[in-house]
């Protein structure tokens, strides 16, 4: 009632939604920077109104984030990158409108189902969250890393090599166990590791723009008359979400659950859900070529994970995602003290924020639907007009995260490398898996080993995860070795 019952609070929510989507839609800005920039705005505001503003803004960041991912292959964050894999091929096929419709529907439904899931799990939240120790985080990270195989397309060897390169780059930082400088070459900006946003922009934005420049034309290879950029395509995409209701439901819940476990990070949720979509599909060969399920899965997870990560943030003051880490600080500045006492004294705030989260996701769908067809036409804009604009935003995004010019060099070097990966048909998603999950696996391994030695592998939770990994890989191998109806799995990114 704090949300709908108060015109002021509802006004805050309505104001926050377009701002959040704007930050999400600009590559490199993203939700984290959005909250950072909005902190002065909410500073000194009524705590409930300020918190509603921030959570509503953060809830819909990825709804906006799908736009550049689908239209230009330019994801703003690691989580949005999973949408590129099938979203961009859909644009190439002239289905930008359908892809954005599917993304919009999936985001809205994911956000709402994620919220409902949280309400259901609230009574058992504490034991569920506390059941995950560093041993389980490590096994979950390994589970995610096995998805490299599913994202490798027609060459497992190429996928593994790229994945390991991503893992290797994730080791650039201060060693979390010894504090030693590791591949930092005495450069201070590498102490905190490679900036994920810069790396994601380098791996996806730069190669797509170079390719567009070299090939000429527009992002959509299909003629305008064949395309589905208008409302028709958008509604087809929206219906796709309900047509694949099983996948929508599963990935919404998976996203919320992974988001709820602090230690794994929100970026992992979308990739694990994308991998699950391939794994559970009857036609895995369609993925990477423009399968609408490849857009639905990461987009549902993208929005539901934010709800999931809200719970540990509020009840344990341990953020479930990097965005929530900043939100946590903002809550404290507003005078809301997240932590164990929240369950005793702050349930009013918890309910308010969960409702705000769900309502914001619904509002975002209606808000955005009017703009989608117009945005879809951007896929027909000539490359020579588009490239300077996208590149400017890419450089801005790489710089803004840490305000470090060195990141621009990383962007150039890694972007050039990624272009050749694209040109010669090497898959890029395994790289993202490596660089996102590498640090989680390393950090949780060190903790688990110091706490229990190698016996951590025998903990019940870890054994369940090992069984899950073996089952998942075995199922995938069994499916891959069955005779296929048509073609082979091929990733075009």
């Amino acid at each position, binding site marked *: 009632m704090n949300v709908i019952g108060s015109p002021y609070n509802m006004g805050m929510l309505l104001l926050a939604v377009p701002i959040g989507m*704007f930050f999400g839609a600009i590559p490199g*800005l993203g939700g984290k920077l*959005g*909250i*950072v*920039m*909005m*902190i*002065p*705005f909410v*500073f*000194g505001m009524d705590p409930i109104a300020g918190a509603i503003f921030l959570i509503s803004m953060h809830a819909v960041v990825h709804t906006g984030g799908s736009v550049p991912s689908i239209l230009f292959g330019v994801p703003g964050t690691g989580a949005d990158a999973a949408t590129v894999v099938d979203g961009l091929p859909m644009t190439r096929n002239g289905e930008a409108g359908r892809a954005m419709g599917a993304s919009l529907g999936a985001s809205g439904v994911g956000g709402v189902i994620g919220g409902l899931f949280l309400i259901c799990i609230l009574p058992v939240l504490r034991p569920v*969250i*506390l059941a995950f*120790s*560093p041993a389980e985080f490590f096994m979950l990270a390994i589970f995610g890393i096995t998805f490299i195989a599913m994202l490798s397309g027609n060459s497992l060897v190429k996928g593994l090599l790229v994945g390991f390169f991503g893992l290797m780059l994730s080791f650039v930082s*201060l*060693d*979390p*166990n*010894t*504090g*030693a400088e590791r591949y930092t070459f*005495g450069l*201070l*900006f590498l*102490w*905190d590791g490679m900036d994920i946003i810069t790396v994601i922009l380098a791996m996806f934005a730069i190669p797509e723009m170079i390719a567009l420049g070299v090939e000429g034309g527009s992002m959509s290879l299909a003629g305008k008359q064949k395309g589905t950029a208008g409302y028709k395509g958008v509604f087809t995409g929206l219906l796709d979400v309900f047509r694949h209701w099983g996948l929508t439901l599963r990935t919404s819940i998976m996203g919320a659950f992974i988001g709820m476990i*602090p*230690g794994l990070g929100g970026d992992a949720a979308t990739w694990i859900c994308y991998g699950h979509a391939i794994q559970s599909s009857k036609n895995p060969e369609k993925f990477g070529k423009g399968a609408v399920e490849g857009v639905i899965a990461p987009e549902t997870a993208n929005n539901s994970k934010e709800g999931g990560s809200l719970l540990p943030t509020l009840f*344990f*003051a*341990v*953020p479930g995602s990097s965005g929530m880490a900043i939100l*946590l*600080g*903002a809550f*404290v*500045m*507003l*005078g809301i*003290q997240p*932590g*164990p*006492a929240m369950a005793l004294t702050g349930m009013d705030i918890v309910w308010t924020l969960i409702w705000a989260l769900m309502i914001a996701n619904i509002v975002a769908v209606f808000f955005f639907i009017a703009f989608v067809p*117009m945005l879809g*036409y*951007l896929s*027909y*804009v000539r490359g020579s*007009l588009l490239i300077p*604009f996208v590149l400017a935003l890419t450089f801005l995004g790489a710089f803004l995260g*840490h*305000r*470090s010019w060195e990141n621009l060099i990383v962007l150039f070097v890694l972007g050039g490398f990624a272009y050749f990966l694209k040109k010669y048909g090497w898959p890029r998603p395994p790289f993202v898996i490596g660089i996102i999950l590498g640090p989680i696996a390393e*950090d949780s391994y*060190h*903790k688990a080993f*110091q*706490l229990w030695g190698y016996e951590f592998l025998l903990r019940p939770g870890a054994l369940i995860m090992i069984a899950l990994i073996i089952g998942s890989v075995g199922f995938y191998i069994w499916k891959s070795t069955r005779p296929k109806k048509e073609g082979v799995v091929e990733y075009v990114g």
Partner: protein
Amino acid sequence: MLKKITILILFSLLAGCSQSSNDSNANQPSGSAETAGSSSSGNIFAGENLNYIVTTNAGGGYDAYARLIGRYLVKKLGGDNVVINNIPGGGHIVGTNTLWKSKADGLTIGTVNAGLIYNQLIGVKTLQFDISKFSWIGKAAGEPRSLVISEDCQVQSMEELLASVEVIKLASAGVGSASYLDTKLLAEAFDLNVDIIPGFEGNEGEMSMMRGEVCGQFGTTSSVQPFVDSGYGHFILTVGGEVEGVPNAMEFVSTDKARRIVSLIGALSELGRVTAAPPGTDPEVMERLREAYTATLNDPEFLAEAEKMKLPIDAASGDTVDQLVMAAMNQPQETIDIIADSVRVE
């Protein structure tokens, strides 16, 4: 037509982008109205923005203090606006390097993390500053440290911990962090039979205590207070401040080495939330900054707002900060060796 629409969209996006950058300062009140009398020709702050460097991302404790203090400080100085400049990275080093190299005209100030004293003592090469040469403006609050123990732990008091033959696991942040070094030094001072498990950032250590993996952690009292208030644990020792019913570390000191280490941790705790200007700032300008800073921290309106935001205030002058920094930097080789050993890579 399409071209026009595209250009229009691009333009509005760019306009929006620049607007959001400006928004970061949009809510900062203008100080000129309240300090009309101070806008004399001799006021170098009149009509100028005050650039406040924060060495962490927005949203943290340092950021909260800087935003609150900055708003009032700029009013007292008669300046226009305060511009919060978050420069995170390298465990506060990047931002502090930037502050060190900033123009010493009084218009740029910044937060400094006292834990960097550890880094300077052992000669970390990426430090481009000499922490003892900053022009200290003042301190807003101390950050007393406390040792918290979970209710499920096999030891429940400092006496039991000192006598424990069983290895007690304590959580800390990453190796080399101030939290890790504080914990390591405390263990050295009292020869504690503990195993420090690093890598627990923020409140992750508390979750680990709830899961029964570690027994406790040594960190800032304020950050673990909600955990204690909820009944999951209790403090058994405090350094650099007073917590009701909790013994001070000095009560257990029996050697010179322990006394020196506890004093060092205590000094760093005292220097919790300090603000400095670049070295070589004109003494007259420093005087203005210190006066305005002190006036800010004694402003009833400011104190009420700080209380609302749960930001404790325990002010001290720039001179006091200077003396505390000099005292903390004056360590015998034995203490420096202990710090260096703590972060030495095998």
